[in-house]
């Protein structure tokens, strides 16, 4: 079976037609708007190509994942232009540099993994004992006396909040999802339901996006119920148990 390259993947999208390599280059040179590209369709094309081949080519999958995640990052950046300016936008050359650097790093690690595989098969005829020798002396190893303060120290260290990770390389700063999880939970302790848009409407768009993720998270865990009259209408959030009671009342009525 001939080897395939992700870069040669033929794409037929609304906004673009041609090989993946060209798409990549045009995006990096800013000759194409990332927001115009339907990345779901790109992933689908790739999945179809993979499905046509009986064998799963992990090399190609790995390269594709790295490329597509880099492109998604470009798209995410473009979706939030206001915030991007605030933290300093990457020039196209810098974006290309960053992408190339990441690809090179990942490729070197893949080469290193390939070297390990080679080594493993070369050393496949080297057997050695795992574990103690059958007739080795059995001596119970005693632990030296320990300081109980070390235990207190370990717990204190675990109670230290993590340092805030610098996301400046992404030119975007995302608040943690947990912040909104807690905010919404607290809100529902005080009120039976609230209007999502009214609650987060004044926040920057990045934070709104994270708030929506928190909402989906709460819905997934069954803590809340969501309702919306029509698409793009305000999202109403209520406690899950209330919703069940309402539903039950409605059905029995």
């Amino acid at each position, binding site marked *: 079976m001939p080897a395939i390259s992700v870069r040669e993947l033929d794409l037929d999208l609304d906004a673009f037609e041609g090989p993946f390599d060209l798409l990549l280059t045009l995006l990096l040179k800013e000759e194409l708007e990332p927001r115009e590209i339907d990345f779901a369709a790109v992933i689908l094309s790739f999945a179809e190509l993979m499905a046509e081949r009986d064998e799963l080519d992990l090399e190609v999958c790995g390269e594709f994942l790295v490329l597509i995640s880099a492109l998604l990052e470009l798209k995410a950046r473009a979706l939030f232009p206001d915030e991007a300016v605030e933290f300093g936008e990457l020039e196209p050359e810098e974006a290309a540099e960053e992408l190339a650097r990441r690809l090179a790093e990942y490729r070197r690690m893949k080469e290193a993994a390939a070297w390990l595989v080679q080594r493993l098969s070369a050393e496949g005829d080297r057997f050695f*004992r795992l*574990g103690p*020798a059958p007739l080795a*002396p059995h001596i119970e190893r005693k632990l030296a006396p320990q300081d109980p303060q070390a235990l207190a120290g370990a717990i204190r260290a675990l109670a230290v909040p993590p340092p805030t990770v610098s996301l400046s390389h992404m030119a975007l700063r995302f608040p943690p999802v947990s912040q909104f999880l807690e905010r919404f939970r607290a809100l529902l302790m005080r009120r039976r339901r609230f209007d999502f848009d009214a609650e987060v409407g004044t926040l920057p768009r990045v934070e709104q996006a994270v708030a929506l993720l928190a909402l989906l998270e709460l819905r997934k865990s069954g803590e809340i119920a969501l309702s919306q009259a029509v698409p793009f209408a305000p999202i109403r959030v209520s406690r899950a148990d209330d919703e069940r009671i309402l539903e039950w009342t409605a059905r029995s009525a």
Partner: protein
Amino acid sequence: MDSPLRLIAANPVDHLARTVEALLVVASAPLSAGELAEAAGDDSERVETALGLLFERYREGRSGIVLERVAGGFAFRASREAADACARLFERPVERGLSQAALETLAIVAYLGPCSRPEVARIRGVAADSAVASLVERGLITEAGRESGPGGAVRYRTTPLFERVFGLESLATLPRLDDLGDDVGEIRSRLLEVAEARAS
């Protein structure tokens, strides 16, 4: 197949003896003549002959490696003349203290009371399997029932040996953590909160 050639080229039992040596140096339990014969792809009688050769080569006074017949078969051991050296090797304190993973796990179990592996893992942010296993093996923690509900995970508590090693009269004499919360419940929720922040 190159074995017929080898059989001609060298003393065949010599070659078999080398295979038996190799099997015995890799084994972590004594091997029977039958097991050796099956692995070597040879018959038991010839294996016995090879073992005879090896008994001569690996005997007290001649070699530091001594072949021994024990219950269940044959195994290598250290010569008696090297007994002192071996004792020094095994008595040396390999690990003076506890690893970071072991210390954190032990502290969680000691302060929060009986805890399951998933709970420890949630607080530490990494799987706790090997840390828990090593603490159980050292006798510092032990099983203490299961979490309530069917299929609940096994919980662990500290042992009297733990108290001795840390010079504690009881768990009540652990250094206080007033700065982190008023009671165990508060400390537990604070740790979980931080763990969640670390994971996000």
